[in-house]
């Protein structure tokens, strides 16, 4: 049921090859006076374009502008040049927030993608069973329930008297129990685990969808040639899924770098600054401490970081299509 069906928007091959084929056969008719003038096309695009120019492009330009000033958001602003940026990279609190976000990539991105690959190739073979259907729904559940709700649930599970510690105590591991989200050494990994839980389902579903397109004959041929499961996985599954893996990595890396909800709910950046991430730091700077200039500088750095990570992956996956 969850498999993409041709009548939905999901079938990529249809979208890509359909119009090209049609255009080839029908181009004479298109040229014969049925073309729509460009301005009509623009009329349809206009609302969306206006929407994004006003609400996305303009704010970005303003953010860059604010980042060059010291400003409390209300009173007069003072030109400070690149001083705010200097502070982002020298102030340990600010810079550590960026480092934390980078560390979160391990949990938000690496673990879900690797584990997702393992799970997808495992349940691919039982993909038609009832269990697989249930598993898919359950895997995707963390993605649709509000992160705030998920964060609350996890806060309780991981608390000092939470169920994780109770289970550990019963296993005779009472020594390692702690308030996982309140301990300097475990808070960041604990936040990471929540993120991995949220993103694992998305990655698995994406990879499963990709795998359903792989011709089973490829695997049969490989098996006849004596390839083991590991070899099959590395030589067939991974190369064919390059595009899906690319999308998973893009989405999850952005989620790690731009993380906000989970951290805000589970730790608020603490203890100390051990789970402070740029998103949360920007929030505090802009909305509590009224340092709009500093917040904007950090925002610009974060934006650049996200684009540096995401655009090459986008470009790589696109490269394969053309």
């Amino acid at each position, binding site marked *: 049921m969850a498999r993409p069906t041709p009548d*939905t928007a999901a079938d990529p091959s249809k979208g890509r090859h359909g119009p090209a084929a049609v255009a080839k056969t029908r181009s004479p008719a298109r040229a014969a006076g049925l073309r729509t003038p460009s301005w009509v096309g623009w009329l349809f*695009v206009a609302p969306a374009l206006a929407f994004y120019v006003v609400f996305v492009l303009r704010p970005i330009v303003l953010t860059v502008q604010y980042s060059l000033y010291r400003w409390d958001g209300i009173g007069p602003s003072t030109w400070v040049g690149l001083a705010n940026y200097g502070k982002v990279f020298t102030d340990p609190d600010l810079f550590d927030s960026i480092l934390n976000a980078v560390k979160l990539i391990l949990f938000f991105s690496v673990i879900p993608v690797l584990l997702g690959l393992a799970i997808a190739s495992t349940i691919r073979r039982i993909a038609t069973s009832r269990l697989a259907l249930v598993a898919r729904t359950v895997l995707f559940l963390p993605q649709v329930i509000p992160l705030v709700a*998920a964060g609350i649930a996890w806060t309780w599970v991981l608390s000092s008297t939470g169920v994780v510690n109770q289970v550990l105590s019963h296993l005779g591991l009472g020594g390692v129990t702690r308030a996982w989200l309140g301990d300097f050494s475990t808070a960041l990994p604990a936040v990471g685990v929540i993120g991995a839980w949220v993103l694992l389902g998305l990655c698995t579903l994406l990879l499963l969808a990709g795998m359903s397109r792989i011709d089973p004959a490829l695997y049969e041929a490989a098996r006849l040639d004596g390839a083991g499961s590991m070899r099959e996985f590395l030589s067939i599954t991974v190369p064919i899924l390059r595009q899906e893996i690319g999308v998973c990595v893009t989405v999850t890396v952005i989620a790690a770098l731009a993380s*906000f909800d989970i951290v805000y709910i589970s730790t608020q950046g603490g203890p100390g600054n051990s789970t402070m991430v740029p998103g949360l730091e920007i929030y505090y700077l802009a909305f509590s401490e009224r340092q709009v200039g500093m917040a904007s500088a950090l925002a610009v750095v974060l934006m650049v970081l996200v684009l540096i990570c995401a655009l090459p992956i986008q470009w790589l996956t696109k490269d394969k299509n053309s």
Partner: protein
Amino acid sequence: MTATRRGWWRTALGLVLTALMLFPVYWMINVSFTRDQDMRKSPPYWFPVNGTFEGYRAVLEQQGPYLLTSLIVGLGTVLLTLVVSAPAAFSLAKLRPRGGGVLSFVLLIAQMIPGIIMAMGFYAIYLSTGVLNTVPGLIVADSTLAVPFAVLIFTTFMSGIPEELMQAARVDGATPLRVFWSVVLPISRNSIITVSLFAFLWAWSDFIFASTLDQGGAGQPITLGIYHYIGNNNQQWNAIMATAVVASIPATVLLVIAQRYVAAGVTAGAVKD
């Protein structure tokens, strides 16, 4: 023999994994029924025996307005997203105006901008135009999350609509608007459902825009309703969890009854070309 043993292995692994993934959600439900005095009991009640509806009573009494706001924001976001994205996608897929790629590029960038940065931008605009702390303001902000995805889904689908179909209408004298409204939109029903579903889910779960743009609003969404519980240093964990459960119900119901459309959305997101 080996085949069945391997199959058994996979099934067992699948079961364990499903259970592990489900556990935090299950625990949220379990705690929502737990009495205050049993909250820190060790070992805990693994099932809601000796349960209480106290938490849900609190939700009914206190969270109604929040839920209503979330519903309005969700539906508003669906509507605005459709109105903005469907015509744009139609144009990109079928009319292909010169330079239309600019929009695709802007949408791609918009998708990558972290929410908190968008929130700062909205805050400045809203403050000066007086829509801060209002429901329409929140709807507009939430729509910016859904529109790039919506344009992607619609463009992919509409590109596949045969040109003949549209040309037949054009020969009969239909304007592009007419073609869009009477030919393209009705065929795009499935994509409309997929888009609406995701727009609603995103708006419903949004926290970042709600906490920055609607913190002092008269109508606040349920995600803020949950958050206020924590802010109040409330020890009524069953009520907190019950709120989280209630906030998760619409999403879960939609996921189960509209699985096909969710899957379509997930896989279509994978084809960003």
